[in-house]
């Protein structure tokens, strides 16, 4: 039970409890210790519930970035029956930060596009910790056009701190590809389902984030800027990342309140990293149910609804002789 290679400080009480349980289970115990074991088993569940219910905004970021949190590659094996990876952007290279390929999901054949963060240090470096370059977005756009041509629904798994900030990325058009990708996805004539599985970092996330249904895992976040970046600009120091995290209102419950997502997918007790299989089951259930609904829609209706969905986002006031009142765009 108490494995957990990486332990966040917020998880420490949970692991202390679980380590003690493991210890007591592994040896002969006194009557008192058996009583303690029963109590601990009960307490640890309550403790997990409480800690994860009361996560601060910054702690949510820590959970979303947890090294053991399931990644796109985990879901590819746990959710889908088959994955046929398709490489390359036919122009510059094969960005490892963006995985694309055909996959089978229940009775559906789909195209999956997902940010990849990697597990080992070598993998993480190869995919720049999930930060895609322009060739990553060119690759995803190319494969989406392929999906559109052959009528395959597209599933986007979003998990990035942001699009890569570097010289090569700028030279090869980082702004342009993100803009182009949204432009393409706005009218792609097949269903698109987007799920933020960990970090929804700014334009890099939105670059594969325009779809018919947008879901966010319970402890994922989706933000206009990283809390560190925001703190650096507005507080002039990244030390204020927790304050920035609080101000930015990027947790799943905030996103529901602001009407920018359709669903929150509940995570297993203690977070997705404590039970990736259970998380995968829930994700799969969501995807299958959503696809069933979307594939039934005529293309025109699908695209008109997709347009209206994003068109309504935002909050503005309208001035009239009677004064200012909220206007739903």
């Amino acid at each position, binding site marked *: 039970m108490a494995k957990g290679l990486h332990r966040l400080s917020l998880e420490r009480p949970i692991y202390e409890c679980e380590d003690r349980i493991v210890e007591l289970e592994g040896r002969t115990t006194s009557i008192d210790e058996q009583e303690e074991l029963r109590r601990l088993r009960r307490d640890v569940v309550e403790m997990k519930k409480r800690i994860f219910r009361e996560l601060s905004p910054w702690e949510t970021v820590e959970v979303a970035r947890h090294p053991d949190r399931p990644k796109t590659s985990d879901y590819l094996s746990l959710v889908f029956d088959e994955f046929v990876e398709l490489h390359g952007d036919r122009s510059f290279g094969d960005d490892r930060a963006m995985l694309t390929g055909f996959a089978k999901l229940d009775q559906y054949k789909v195209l999956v596009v997902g940010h990849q963060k990697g597990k080992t240090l070598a993998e993480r470096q190869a995919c720049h910790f999930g930060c895609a370059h322009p060739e990553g977005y060119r690759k995803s756009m190319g494969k989406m056009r392929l999906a559109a041509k052959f009528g395959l629904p597209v599933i986007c798994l979003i998990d990035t701190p942001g699009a890569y900030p570097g010289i090569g990325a700028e030279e090869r058009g980082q702004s342009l590809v*993100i803009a182009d990708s949204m432009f393409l996805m706005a009218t792609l004539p097949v269903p698109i389902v987007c799920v933020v599985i960990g970090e929804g970092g700014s334009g890099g996330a*939105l670059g594969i984030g325009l779809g018919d249904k947008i879901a966010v895992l319970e402890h994922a976040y989706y933000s*206009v800027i990283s809390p560190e970046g925001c703190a650096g600009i507005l507080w002039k120091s990244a030390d204020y990342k927790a304050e920035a995290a609080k101000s930015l209102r990027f947790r799943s419950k905030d*996103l529901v309140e602001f009407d920018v997502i359709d669903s929150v997918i509940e995570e297993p007790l203690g977070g997705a990293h404590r039970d990736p299989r259970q998380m995968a089951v829930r994700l799969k259930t969501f995807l299958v149910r959503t696809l069933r609904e979307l594939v039934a829609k005529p293309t025109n209706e699908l695209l008109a609804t997709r347009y209206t969905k994003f*068109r309504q*986002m935002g909050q503005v006031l*309208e001035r*009239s*002789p009677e004064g200012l009142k909220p206007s739903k*765009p």
Partner: protein
Amino acid sequence: MARGDIKTTSDPDNGDKWPPIAAFSQTAHTTDSESSDTVKKPVSEETAKLKRPARASGKKRGVPEGLWQMCQGCQATIFRKEAEQLLNVCPQCGYHWYVSAADRITQLLDAGTFEEWNAHLEPTDPLGFIDKKPYADRLKAEQKRTGLRDAALTGTGMIRARRVAVGVTDSAFIMGSMGSVVGERLARLIERATLEKLPLIIISASGGGARMHEGILSLMQMAKVSAALALYSRSGGLYISVITNPTMGGVAASFASLGDLIFAEPRALIGFAGPRTIKATIRVELPKGFQTSEFLLEHGFIDRIVDRKDLKSEIARVIDYCRG
């Protein structure tokens, strides 16, 4: 390339039923006409304000008060009047200084032809955002300082007798960043340009990208405006994006990059990530001229670099190629 593909490969059964005008005619156009009587007064007030040379709004970043001014391009001290006569371009080195959105409209459109749209939209503070000061206070201060309600002006007017839909962002208002009002004004502008079949010009001066203070709602404005441009493009509309100093982040990564034609003023800073962010990430010195208009032209992302004095005639000229 991308756009051509969509047209040929997508929804063959869709034909000319696209764009779904019904989907947006309620949100933009009818809201406008329904409320046109009630909002007439504020709109005309705004328009009147615009026609004054915006001296009050001229005391901005890079444009301090006084008779003389130091040029950011060549460090020379320049007689302000002289630069103003040259549309705020340095007479010594040709560096393009800040221009307010109102002045930009005066420079670009035929005199007296501008009619502002959706001036009655105002920003709010959906997150209750607080950094060193509350966003609500920041908005009030910026409105007072610049005479603008938010960072974009939109409307219609004539460019050498050609009617166009035009949007301009103003880098003086919270770095020209895009929050809900900028996104909404641009989306309504684009939808109306689609319905009225007008060429569309958007001039970006948005160093702030997507506005942090409105959080996820600002990020979603990128998607909203890009989607509106996708429909506009499919209806056959001509969109000319003019990128000016500075244009970064979420604005560069949405409407500024989606023009059928992309012009840039000389030596403008244009990019996705800020130079400081890049430096902090990769820890090497950035090459000279990195993220300038010239850099983007060299790497193939801009059609033409256009001097401010030629912008009006260049726009008129390319409109005639596409719509003449």
